[in-house]
């Protein structure tokens, strides 16, 4: 690489780091300021004395525990539901021959093309007809099905040679044993990728909780942090809002740092 290209590269890297890291640092710094420090202009970079109390105050104020539990319940129910619905379907599409398999597969994939934003109005009507508004059902049942998970796992299962399945059948393995003890261990990285992707996107979801719930009872973590933004501009308690936002970000950031490469792959191959 020429000298000029090297300089250009380093400059680009530094700019990117600044543009992508600074907002987080600034948020952390604000979350530890007093309210008056947070609205001081020109701002001080660091708080005089870090106000860790902002975090405990916010924890109580936004009912963090209640919403975090809702997030855990909703996310894990969806992941388990998807495993129960998508693995059998993917197994059938990958390893069974049956009439209209192509047609059914096309039906299954329909919302891989169409964004969810196309059907949110009728889904709302449907869910309210079922009497599910403001219940966990509304937050879980429509999402335990995933085109992407079925598609992704079907591709993974197809790569497992049929001979292996035949050999297992010769040894009198039952169908359930074939799925659980043979297919799943081999396809484990793919299944985990699909579920990790579901986990992150449901944990972060803002759109569906907004549409499908009206009360606070079953809403998830992002909703409560959003609720901290004051409707009157200028009255937002920025320091506490940033503390709340840090509490929303930290769990997923820890997960990301722990499983960095895995998560990046989940997204890149997930959406592709």
């Amino acid at each position, binding site marked *: 690489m020429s000298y000029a290209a090297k300089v250009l590269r380093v400059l*680009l*890297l530094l700019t990117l780091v600044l*543009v*992508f*890291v600074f*907002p987080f640092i600034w*948020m952390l710094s*604000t979350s530890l300021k007093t309210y008056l420090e947070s609205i001081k202009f*020109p*701002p001080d970079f660091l708080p005089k004395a870090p106000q860790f109390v902002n975090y405990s105050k916010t924890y109580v104020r936004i009912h963090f525990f209640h919403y975090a539990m809702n997030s855990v319940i909703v996310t894990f129910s969806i992941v388990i539901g998807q495993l*129960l619905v998508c693995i*059998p379907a993917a197994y*059938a*599409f990958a390893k*069974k021959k*049956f009439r209209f398999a192509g047609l*059914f597969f096309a*039906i*299954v994939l*329909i*919302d891989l093309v*169409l964004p*969810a*934003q*196309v*059907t*949110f*109005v*009728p*889904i709302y*009507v*449907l869910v309210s007809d079922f009497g599910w508004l403001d219940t966990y059902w509304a937050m879980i049942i429509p999402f*335990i*099905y995933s085109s992407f998970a*079925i598609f992704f796992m079907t591709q993974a299962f197809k790569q497992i040679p049929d001979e292996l399945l035949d050999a297992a059948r010769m040894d009198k393995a*039952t*169908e*359930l044993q074939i799925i659980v003890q043979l297919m799943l261990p081999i396809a484990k990285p793919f299944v985990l990728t699909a579920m990790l992707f579901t986990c992150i996107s449901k*944990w*972060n*979801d*803002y759109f569906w909780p*907004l*549409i499908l719930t009206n009360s606070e009872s079953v809403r998830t*973590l*992002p*909703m409560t*942090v959003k609720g901290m933004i004051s409707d009157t*501009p*200028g009255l937002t308690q*920025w320091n506490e809002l*940033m503390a709340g*936002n840090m509490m*929303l970000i930290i769990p997923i950031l820890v997960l*990301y740092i722990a499983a960095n490469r895995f*998560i*990046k792959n989940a*997204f*890149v191959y997930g*959406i592709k």
Partner: protein
Amino acid sequence: MVNRIIRNPYILIAPAIILVSVFSLYPILFAVRVSFMNWDTVLGTKENVGFDNYIHIFKDPVFWKVLKNTLIFAFFTVVIGIVMAFVIGIFLQKNRFSDNLVQSIIFTPNILSAVSVTVMWMWLMDPNVGIINYVLKWFGLPTLKWMMSPDTSLMSIIIVSIWKGLGYNVMIVIAGLQSIPRYIYEAAKLDRAGRWTTLFRITLPLLSPTLFFLLITSIISSFSAFDVVSLMTNGGPENSSNLIVYWIYQIGFLQFNIGKASAGSILFMIMVSIIAVINYVFFNKKVHYQ
């Protein structure tokens, strides 16, 4: 017993087919039917009104403004997002420690909730006490009212959307770059092809399927943008940052007019389908494969 049941492929796919029918297929048909109705969810009145909802939409100046906003939003987020991803991808494609670290850093906003990201940016862009205005002032530039002003609200949500999505686009570009075989570059070197020739004659054409994939998925996702609008501006001020999905939400959920909202959904679906068809036609014919 269990074994006999799960031997039948129709039973294996049944839960998936039932769910996709109830929550994807039926809602599409339902939206088509309701788009021809005047349905007020507060009064509970329903009546068939033919094409009235569609006529109302086409006569509504807000719809045209929203459509224009959506096109502007999609154009800037997609073009800037892909060009930046291409340049950054070229610089970060090696498997060096520094490259991987920066890739991870710019990917971070992708795994965070839209709420986290917008709350953070609303703080940075606050017209009175935000750090961005402070920096602008420091450089002697005029400060902006960002999401509070009709002139800059659309720009504000464009900036945040590009920032959130950039890391993902970069990862796709890098995955594409790494799939180009090394021997092609070695052959080019032997032929004494220069850096720019290699970039424009080899890298770009061989990356074109990846870029085209990115183009189509980015257009569809920017057409579907909702979170950033809802969180940062509520479409305002004066609908200056209102985009089509948020506008449908306003009609259905704030004005309680499910019929008109469904008609809006159908128009939105038609737009997305056109993009998908273009994708299908071009992806199969025009794009350069190695």
